[in-house]
């Protein structure tokens, strides 16, 4: 005799979960697969022409990167040509790719950066420099923000985990910027970072009695990204402090008492009790920060628009710039897919780090 279906409620079960599932499917799952599909077309937001399938052409355009070696220009006698200052002269890549069959493959590509190697010049050439700059900045942002923000957050968590009167007030204060919109924070800090009348410059000026000259923090390519990193850390560090804190509070106080009785110093107690107890929290914090850092957009849009000199371009900013600004949906989708692959890789690393070590 088959199981009776008394305790199964197929109709009610589906009915109750359907609103939620339909919305998630329509607005998350479908666009997710759209991203892959659209990245292989020439789709535009509004276009009179029908959409065409182009295969991996968009990826080829965006991801194409190569290392080329340029030999110096020589005169008839074979001597290297130098200019008045003695700098070696190299042929232009654009000319070479037109005249020299060996360089034809590099047609339309531009030098991203290069260096001198003996007499020849090595150059990394790309077809889409803006994408590569955005990718580099995003990775740089992630690589700096993740450890620094995670570390400061842990420090703050240890600070507010002390048993002191009024400690909750400090917790509340440190967390405060988290509830403030990143857009508001960005605009506020634009004023703080301002080159002329900014709070930061004026404060530095006062504190150093005029010794430190004012810097246009956001207007200078060498400080802009760093300034945005610092502000981003300031805004979100409280978030991760709270996650660390809940990790800290899962460590049994009897372990500390035991360490105390064994005569462990403060540092030893941290090294042998606290830190091992925080392993999984550490992985979680780093992952969450990394995910958030990859999504870098509002700060750029409000503070620098990617400038100066593209020094603050980010992947999401480029995706929006193309997909929305230039209505190039397919271009934006390619960047979205690249971003997702990066995030997925991070998640897999997380899985691997927190895997069950029993097996």
């Amino acid at each position: 005799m088959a199981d009776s279906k008394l305790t199964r409620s197929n109709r009610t079960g589906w009915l109750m979960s359907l609103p939620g599932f339909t919305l998630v499917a329509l607005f998350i799952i479908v666009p997710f697969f759209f991203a892959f599909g659209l990245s292989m077309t020439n789709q535009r937001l509004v276009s009179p022409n029908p959409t065409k399938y182009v295969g991996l052409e968009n990826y080829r355009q965006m991801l194409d990167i190569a290392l080329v070696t340029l030999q110096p220009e020589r005169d008839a006698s074979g001597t290297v040509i130098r200019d008045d200052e003695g700098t070696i002269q190299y042929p232009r890549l654009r000319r070479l790719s037109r005249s020299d069959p060996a360089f034809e493959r590099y047609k339309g590509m531009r030098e991203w950066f290069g260096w001198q190697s003996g007499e020849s010049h090595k150059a990394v050439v790309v077809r889409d420099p803006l994408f590569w700059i955005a990718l580099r900045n995003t990775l740089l942002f992630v690589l700096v923000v993740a450890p620094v923000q995670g570390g400061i957050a842990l420090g703050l968590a240890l600070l507010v985990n002390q048993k002191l009167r009024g400690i909750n007030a400090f917790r509340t204060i440190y967390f405060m910027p988290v509830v403030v919109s990143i857009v508001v924070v960005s605009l506020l800090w634009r004023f703080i970072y301002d080159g002329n009348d900014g709070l930061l410059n004026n404060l530095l000026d006062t504190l150093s009695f005029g010794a430190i000259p004012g810097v246009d923090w956001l207007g200078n390519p060498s400080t802009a990204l760093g300034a945005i990193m610092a502000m981003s850390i300031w805004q979100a560090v409280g978030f991760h402090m709270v996650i660390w804190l809940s990790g800290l509070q899962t460590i049994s106080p009897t372990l500390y008492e035991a360490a105390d009785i064994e005569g462990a110093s403060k540092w030893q107690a941290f090294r042998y009790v606290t830190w091992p107890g925080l392993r999984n929290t550490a992985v979680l914090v780093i992952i969450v920060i990394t995910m958030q850092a990859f999504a870098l957009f509002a700060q750029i849009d409000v503070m620098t628009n990617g400038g100066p000199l593209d020094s603050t371009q980010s992947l999401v900013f480029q995706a929006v710039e193309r997909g929305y600004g230039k209505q190039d949906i397919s271009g934006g989708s390619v960047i979205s897919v690249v971003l997702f692959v990066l995030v997925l890789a991070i998640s897999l690393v997380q899985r691997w780090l927190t895997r069950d070590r029993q097996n």
Partner: protein
Amino acid sequence: MATLSMSGLTKRFGDIEVIRGVDIDIADGEFVVFVGPSGCGKSTLLRMIAGLEDISGGELRIDDHLVNDMQPRDRGIAMVFQTYAIFPHMSVRENLGFGLTIAKVPKAEKEQRVMQAARILQMEHLLDRRPSQLSGGQRQRVAIGRAIVREPSVFLFDEPLSNLDAALRMDMRMEIGKLHEQLGATMIYVTHDQVEAMTLADRIVVIKDGIVQQVGAPMELYHQPANRFVAGFIGSPSMNFLPVEVQSVDHDSALVASTSLDAVRVPMRVEPLKSGDQALLGLRPQYLVPTNEQDAGQLHGTLSLVERLGSETVVDVNTRENTRLVAAIADDRTFETGTEIAFTFDPNRAHLFSAAGDGALNK
């Protein structure tokens, strides 16, 4: 009021069969207790009766209606859970009346039935309290009250006293007994505690591994256990099992002996044995009588532990073949550990079981 009948009931979770063909008929107004070790399937069986678990096979009838596929609410049952399961966000009054509120019973009638249940359980003064303001015993009373308000034809109790402390457990046990007398309803009660089973039940159903081992009145199970498992499970302290060898048999008795047991003829009620078989002699601790002279006794050993409980003295004895025996002695003679001791017993109160298998019924 209702009768209930199970025939060939089975329950499978995937490939594992947890209830393996249960046949029980329960009479109107009867108090039946399902008892067995944890994981034996007794709670699953109760939940199948309640309609909270699917029935994989067989038939379940309440008052001759097949209810296999009927929703819990349509079966005319009420259930009391081990964790009480009273709704923490409702007052006692709202808890008691919940079923009637759902059924849209008119307010006046609801109020009257709630008051009546509260009177029966003497908790009129608690009606406006929240569950968090109640003690464990009071919470269980609310759970029972909620069952009473439904006026069910069958009450189901799933280990209702397990979460209470020992003293309270005894009070509530008596109250449930009284409630049964007062309402005269059919009740099915699940417990792992054989004392609850013995004191409450009209009939006890002993279950192990999803199989009914024996059904019978409490004293019937005590005196005539159907197998070694039931013999060991019912009674406290548990029955002793002494390894013996069968020396000879006639049609309903056997002569058995061992190093520490002088040859004795005992009735053979459970399984047929033959000469030369290894067997287990079941002796209840209460029926072992210590003798003063070594030679007068039938069973010999050394005292290893003495526990004086006041009403009785429980002694641990190491037999000559190093089996541990327990004897419960009613008088308060003093014993000294390490001394030799001998016991006599009434052979008619001894039970003889085969030493093979685990002693329980298996299919």
